């Protein structure tokens, strides 16, 4: 079976599990929260705008930036934890976005729209550098996370799930390995200079070991794709769900100020 056929079969299965999980563990929960918040309001005099804002208190831009993007709460806990989490967060977001774009622009969209920019031009070089850099950032963050979890987490009372960290670490590590082996097989790739980590690794591999790199690349790429598919399928059923739920919940509850507002409304109602 062609590796891309295998990939798309995996993606279909993985996305099916992902969507079922997202429906059960996220969409239903959000629907319930909106319904339960709305059902408590029997005040018809406040107008639909205020009603809507009470039911779905849309986060302010500043709160969203502080809580969802820069994760101020983690920074308040510890600079190291914040750095580790930010490396994972930004590394993952950027590599995911670039990889998604490269998959469609580099493999599929060019059949319908004729361009060279993202096929072998400067666009592809930019994507290569971006993915290499964000992958390295993610890899460093995950490695720090694993060491921190193994050495300090018990003492510091953090609740990090080691097996999830290792799973994402394997996805990243096999991604780098796959690119290095591909470049070992294709040493004349015109963009090899832009793979500033995988390129030197490929050169070292080629010089150190004599192997059928094309065959090995197929295998490692397939393993990487399998790990990635399992990771996505597992998101809604594991602590990874915080990637979607936490930015939303923390922004809407305004870092807890929402609780104070609720309590204040109750006391005002009892006046």
């Amino acid at each position: 079976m062609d590796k891309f056929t295998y990939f798309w079969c995996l993606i279909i299965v993985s996305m099916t599990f992902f969507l079922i999980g997202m429906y059960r563990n996220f969409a239903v929960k959000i629907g319930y929260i909106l319904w339960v918040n709305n059902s408590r309001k029997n005040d018809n005099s406040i107008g639909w705008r205020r009603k809507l804002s009470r039911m779905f208190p849309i986060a302010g831009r500043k709160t969203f930036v502080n809580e969802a993007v820069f994760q101020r709460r983690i920074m308040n806990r510890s600079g190291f934890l914040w750095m580790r989490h930010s490396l994972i967060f930004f590394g993952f977001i950027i590599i995911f976005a670039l990889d998604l774009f490269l998959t469609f622009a580099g493999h599929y969209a060019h059949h319908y729209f004729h361009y060279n920019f993202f096929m072998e031009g400067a666009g592809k070089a930019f994507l290569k550098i971006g993915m290499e850099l964000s992958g390295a950032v993610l890899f460093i963050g995950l490695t720090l996370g694993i060491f921190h979890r193994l050495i300090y987490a018990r003492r510091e009372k953090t609740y990090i799930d080691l097996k999830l960290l290792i799973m994402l670490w394997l996805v990243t590590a096999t991604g780098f390995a796959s690119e290095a082996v591909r470049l070992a097989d294709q040493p004349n790739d015109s963009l090899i200079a832009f793979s500033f980590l995988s390129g030197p690794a490929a050169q070292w591999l080629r010089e150190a070991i004599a192997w059928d790199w094309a065959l090995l690349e197929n295998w490692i790429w397939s393993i990487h794709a399998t790990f990635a598919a399992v990771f996505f399928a597992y998101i809604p059923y594991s602590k990874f769900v915080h990637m979607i739920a936490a930015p939303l919940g923390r922004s809407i509850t305004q870092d807890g100020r929402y609780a104070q507002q609720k309590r204040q409304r109750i006391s005002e109602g009892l006046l």
Partner: protein
Amino acid sequence: MSQYGFYFDKEKCVGCRACEVACQIWNESVQTVKWRNVAMAVEGTYPQIVSVNVSLACMHCGDAPCKKACPRSAITKDEETGRVTVNQELCVGCMLCLWACPFGAPQMGIHGRMEKCTFCEDRPMGLKRACEEICPTQAIVSGEIEMLANFSKHNVGNRLMHDENPGVILGHEGD
């Protein structure tokens, strides 16, 4: 299943916040933020002023919305006592429980996980809860919800008789 809960009398509360302190002291080993909060509201200007103090913590709801809102099923309701607690190992700190809670009870702890009143989990059920024990005006009473409902009826009846001197005797069921 028994359902334990709190009775709170806003007429008796003087806003001293002793309940907040007692809660923090008793649960010191597991609490990193205030689980009980006294909310105060004031209306009007002196001398026509009305104020109220409300001591609020988790109400351990019968049909807890926080439990239904949690994407990790980290919030559970105890079969024996009806108390609602957060499993810190499962919680991811997404704060959806706070969004769903009508009382703003779940709080984000310093470890990035949600915390809330555990109904003094490590106290035997016969004893008063820490907030109840310290309250100088007995504004907080804990117990089984049926007992609290009867207690409330007594209180309202007594208060009505005392304050308004109505031309009616209020009856109630039970002793």
